[in-house]
């Protein structure tokens, strides 16, 4: 039995395919169209899913969609009627896409996919909940979903047991932690639904003491939080329910200045506001999780929704709440709901037993050695060939120890926003200049942004003050932990200003070559940790094909690409060099 899941028309469209209870393929549309956060109908992602299994759309038994579009439309109309006549501008800008696409979702499914079978619609937050619980290792778990907004819901909690999910309580639009984070992201001059993680990365530069950070007290005025973590906003501080600009004048007055302009300097007050926002979020989330534990009396928690990508807070959950185990899927945001949809249809609606646990994120397209060789030869690219895996591992580790920047293109592409060792840029974390080299020459991004360390799972507890045992979401770079003090100066490129690192742990069973390179690098430097950042230029999606990877290397300061078992040196291919800096816009 095959089930195809679709998520689209908000941000990060995706498709996922389930075969007899197992997720066999999943990818986001942006990787194919090369438009970051592409929200169009994921026809390329769907075609990839089908092709990966050698099937056609006729073999698919059900197609599932990640929300109930009419309920969402009802919410949109309610917003406009509540805010009449202030909402005219957003009404004019949003209605054409509702009329042409969102309300006519059956049209692309029938016409573009050429699918004539059954289509099922799952509530948005149920799709989130299913995307996490049904592929988790837990038989029973409390579930918390927190995002911007689905149809009406912004936050839910409930319980999952075997192949059943019950979402018990909700908080409705416009009261939304995701939209609060996005509003302050917009206030700080960063792009919404894209740069929230930058605000999270900026927060440790600010005053993280709630007693001395004046913005913390100010932001508390904006929200009424009850002891069980439920909350409501004073909507006079916000405009997102009727305008495309998110913070209101009153919020700007409260925070003491107008919205920061895009490329202007990030000052200390911006850092303090980011810190205040992070502290507010953490305080509310802790209250919610304590309440959810009290209600469900369950020691396992699964999280989903965009807020579950807040890795800084995720790393504190087990310390600050009674939960003992945590699980988050690698693509916790809207893009990840397509795997929720297919799992929900198979396990809950059709009542089939759960037999699948997501053990790694490698669900995207992969390219055989022959395909890569054909690409290199056809484009007359100069390269050398590794004789075997040992030579590949030894050479790559040696180049990394010499502080070269390596593009690492191996196996199937990752599912979710993080590069986890299939489409990664790797480098030496012991080199104190590496953060600046990567930020300016390769990624063309803001100086304040830290890089992530990757460490073998069996070494993690030596360097990082993780929860024990190391939680599985750490494999997906979803947990930030403090680096032990004695190591901070030895790995400066991955040590954030507060001494933390957003680490990725890797198990050999997940990605043998990647694991071996890290270990071998450790034998050269005595520290088996690498810098791992996504293989892309700022503002572009992570590379998907050999062509994307080669183009990215030639446009940046990446020294080598290890692609399948071929080594390509940038200097050997001078004729293809170009400058990607002007493209580096979010």
């Amino acid at each position, binding site marked *: 039995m095959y089930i195809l899941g679709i998520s689209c028309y908000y941000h990060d469209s995706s498709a996922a395919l389930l075969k007899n209870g197992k997720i066999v393929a999943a990818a986001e549309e942006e990787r194919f169209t090369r438009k970051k956060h592409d929200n169009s109908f994921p026809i390329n992602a769907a075609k990839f899913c089908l092709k990966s299994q050698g099937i056609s759309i006729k073999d698919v038994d059900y197609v599932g969609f990640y929300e109930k579009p009419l309920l969402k439309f009802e919410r949109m109309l309610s917003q406009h009627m509540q805010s009449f006549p202030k909402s005219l501008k957003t009404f004019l800008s949003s209605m054409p896409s509702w009329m042409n696409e969102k309300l006519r979702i059956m049209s692309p499914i029938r016409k573009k996919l050429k699918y004539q079978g059954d289509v099922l619609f799952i509530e948005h937050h149920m799709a989130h909940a299913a995307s996490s619980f049904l592929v988790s290792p837990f038989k029973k778990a409390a579930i918390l979903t927190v995002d911007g907004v689905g149809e009406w819901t912004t936050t839910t909690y409930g319980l999952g047991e075997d192949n059943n999910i019950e979402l018990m309580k909700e908080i409705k639009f416009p009261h939304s932690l995701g939209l609060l984070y996005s509003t302050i992201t917009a206030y700080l001059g960063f792009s919404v639904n894209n740069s929230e993680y930058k605000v999270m990365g900026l927060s440790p530069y600010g005053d993280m003491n709630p007693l001395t950070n004046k913005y913390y007290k100010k932001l508390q005025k904006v929200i009424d939080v009850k002891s069980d973590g439920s909350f409501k906003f004073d909507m006079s501080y916000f405009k997102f*329910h009727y305008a495309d600009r998110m913070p209101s004048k009153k919020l700007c007055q409260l925070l003491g200045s107008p919205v920061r302009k895009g490329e202007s300097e990030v000052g200390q007050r911006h850092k303090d506001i980011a810190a205040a926002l992070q502290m507010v979020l953490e305080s509310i989330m802790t209250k919610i999780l304590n309440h959810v534990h009290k209600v469900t009396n369950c020691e396992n928690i699964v999280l989903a929704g965009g807020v579950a990508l807040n890795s800084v807070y995720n790393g504190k959950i087990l310390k600050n709440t009674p939960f003992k185990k945590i699980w988050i899927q690698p693509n916790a945001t809207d893009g990840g709901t397509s795997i929720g949809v297919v799992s929900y249809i198979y396990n809950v609606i059709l009542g089939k037993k759960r037999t699948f646990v997501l053990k790694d994120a490698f669900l995207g397209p992969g390219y055989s050695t022959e395909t890569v060789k054909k690409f290199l030869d056809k484009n007359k690219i100069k390269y050398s060939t590794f004789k075997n895996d040992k030579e590949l591992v030894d050479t790559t580790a040696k180049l990394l120890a010499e502080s070269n920047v390596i593009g690492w293109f191996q196996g199937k592409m990752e599912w979710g926003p993080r590069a986890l060792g299939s489409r990664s840029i790797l480098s030496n974390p012991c080199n104190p200049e590496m953060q600046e080299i990567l930020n300016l020459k390769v990624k063309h991004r803001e100086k304040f942004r830290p890089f992530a360390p990757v460490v073998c799972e069996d070494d993690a507890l030596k360097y990082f003050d993780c929860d024990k045992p190391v939680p599985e979401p750490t494999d997906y770079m979803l947990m930030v932990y403090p680096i032990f003090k004695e190591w901070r100066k030895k790995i400066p490129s991955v040590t954030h200003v507060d001494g933390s690192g957003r680490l990725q742990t890797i198990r050999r069973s997940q990605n043998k070559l990647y694991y071996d390179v890290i270990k071998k690098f450790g034998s050269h430097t005595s520290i088996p940790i690498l810098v791992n950042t996504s293989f892309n230029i700022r503002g572009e999606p992570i590379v998907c094909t050999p062509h994307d990877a080669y183009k990215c290397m030639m446009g940046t300061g990446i020294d080598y690409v290890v692609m399948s078992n071929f080594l390509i040196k940038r200097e050997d291919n001078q004729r293809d060099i170009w400058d990607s800096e002007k493209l580096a816009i979010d």
Partner: protein
Amino acid sequence: MRLVKDFFKGFFKGMKNFGTNISMIVNSILLSVVYFVGVGLTAIFAKLFRKKFLDLKLNKQVKTYWKDLNLKKKKIDDYYRTF
């Protein structure tokens, strides 16, 4: 030949932009009518009858803002609906 090709390329591009702009103007006019007549009248009547479409008011007295959802497995027919 190339000049002719370039002319038609530019011509079609211009026509496409013209079409896009025209449809944007027509859309805006029609949608403005819908907005002021449909949304506007409903909003005015709703205000007269004190109907609220969004729950915007804070209530310091209540103990919780959590609302019952009780969302669980439904009959398969319910999932065929877009609402």
